[in-house]
């Protein structure tokens, strides 16, 4: 696993926290010529160690593109982006893949659990990718499933679980190899309100700590309260970074901004 404390180029925020992600003037275009779409138009964003940052904004504003660039699964066109001081563009494909596998945990909107494997096997995948022996990986996966409350279901396949339970498995999979950065793409959009709330509660409770950072892309303004900071995006740019939903939308946020949902 990456030793964060030893990374060069680490900067601290005014509160003294180290920097997990540093983005400067990031641009990303899709297509070319007349049909070019400017998905990111010079994004500046920092994510600090130990914080939960939510990326919010209307559909098509570039949230998913930004999180893809941060996670190193999409190449940017311009600007700088470092994750724990490492720049993906300076790595070759093999180094980038290894760095992702060691450093980043993923939680997806539609869970992306492999339906033909048991949930324990699903959770063990990041460990196997990091060279952990199969038996040890399964044991660790079962421990992590215990932590998210699914210790009794380790041999079930994902299709026997509810949506909320599947997202718990996805969270266990994202955390099992102890990554320092978790990226979550709409983790509650496939869940009802109550389950979504519980999932983010679990995510924050289990994932935070040890200076781990979370970047959560979401439309769901009902979970904004869990964020340490909220970065609002519009038209490929971060137009506001605030400390709470109320700062972003004012006191009537639930009523006035439900329309931002996809």
């Amino acid at each position, binding site marked *: 696993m990456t030793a964060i404390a030893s990374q060069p180029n680490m900067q601290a925020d005014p509160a003294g926290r180290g920097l997990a992600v540093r983005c400067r003037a990031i641009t990303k275009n899709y297509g070319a010529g007349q049909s070019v779409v400017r998905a990111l138009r010079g994004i500046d964003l920092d994510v600090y160690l130990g914080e939960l940052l939510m990326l919010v904004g209307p559909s098509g504003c570039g949230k*998913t593109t930004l*999180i*893809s660039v941060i*996670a190193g*699964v*999409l190449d940017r066109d311009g600007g700088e982006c470092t994750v724990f001081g490492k720049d993906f563009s300076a790595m070759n*494909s*093999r180094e980038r*893949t*290894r760095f*992702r*596998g*060691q450093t*980043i945990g*993923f939680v*997806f*909107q*539609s869970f*992306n659990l*492999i*339906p*033909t*494997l048991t949930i324990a*096997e699903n959770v063990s*995948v*990041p460990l*196997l*990718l*990091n060279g952990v022996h*199969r038996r040890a990986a399964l044991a660790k996966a079962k421990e992590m499933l215990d932590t998210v409350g699914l210790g009794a279901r380790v041999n079930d*396949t994902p299709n026997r679980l509810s949506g909320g339970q599947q997202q718990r498995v996805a969270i266990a999979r994202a955390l099992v190899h102890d990554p320092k950065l978790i990226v979550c*793409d*709409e983790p509650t959009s496939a869940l009802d309100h109550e389950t979504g709330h519980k999932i983010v509660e679990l995510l924050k409770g289990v994932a935070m700590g040890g200076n781990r950072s979370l970047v959560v892309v979401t439309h769901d303004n009902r979970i904004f309260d869990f964020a340490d900071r909220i970065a609002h995006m519009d038209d490929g740019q971060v137009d506001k970074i605030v400390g709470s939903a109320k700062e972003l939308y004012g006191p009537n946020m639930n009523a006035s901004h439900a329309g931002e949902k996809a």
Partner: protein
Amino acid sequence: MYLLALKMLFNDKAKFFGIVMGVTLASLVITQQGSIFVGLMARTFGVITDMNYPDIWVMDPKVQFIDDTKPLTDTKLFEVRGVPGVASAVPLYKGMIRARMDNGLFQNCNLYGLDDSTLIGGPGEMVEGNLADLRMADSVIVDLEGATDKLARKGKNPGDPKIPLKIGDTLELNDHRAVVVGIARGSRTFQSQPNVFTTYSRAVTFAPKERKLLSFVLVKAEPGEDLETLRSRITERTGLAAYTANQFKLLTVNYFLKYTGIPINFGIAVSLGFIIGTLITGFMFYSFTIDNLKYLGTLKAMGTGDSTLMGMILLQALSVGCIGFGIGAGAATVFGMSMGGTQLAFWITWQILVVSGGAVLIICMLAATLSVRKVVALEPAVVFKG
């Protein structure tokens, strides 16, 4: 990860069975048709295989295959015997003769006339009687297939089973009386005609009258004699063609390959098996990969390298290949065993299994290549698109 790759494959039962079915079909058709083809080709030289005595077969240079006899004058036998390096040389008559059945119908038979003194060239395995009984008057030995089927007598009532020939029964061969003194087991011939063995001197009296009747001279070489050298020497001294048994088999097979439509017909069947197997397997395997693309993309995002993903896909392809090949080749073998004793020519050899296995390997590699291309080109960012 490779174990998980296998679980992903095996637990998707519908796709798994579909892919295995495609491979099995290809393997079954290629192995079965290949074995029938080889069986048929082996029948063309069955007589050469059964007569394991001669080191060299001597014949007219124009002979193209075993049944294409071009008679020699009897003096050629003595010329061959005079070639240095020849330990012994005996005559063999081979020709067609008509047997008259007790119902008045005729049955064509292969008639073999063996050297009167040594009886060299006789059937390898006697089921009943003794080869030496050919020295009795009018005696013949009939092969088991002929005795139980084409030369067998009709039952007393319509629908009754045929009554096989037995020792002591008589046959009418080209207006000559012949007495069965033995039943022998031998290879089936290409045309599945009964084989009838007798002495050379009796065969030439049974046979239709011709000026020349000697079909082949069977040569045994002196110990230590180089067969290639002896072959050349016989040809040089006598003007006749001389082949080792294997060369004569090859000559015979080549004739059938060149002048009959058999290889084309079997080639088409084998090609169809290969093409259909490739299409089914390729489509099902590609479909399996497409179904799993989201998960492969997830694995890619989570840190699985392209080489690992390629290895997983190749392992999946090879696994279904091995299973499908095993089932297909096994089914073809069971088919061949169940058809034993029938007219069907079926000879499964290790070479056929190698060819069939190679074809299955190619099918799997083609199927895997399509999938690998898709996975390598897959952008891991696709997993964030819901």
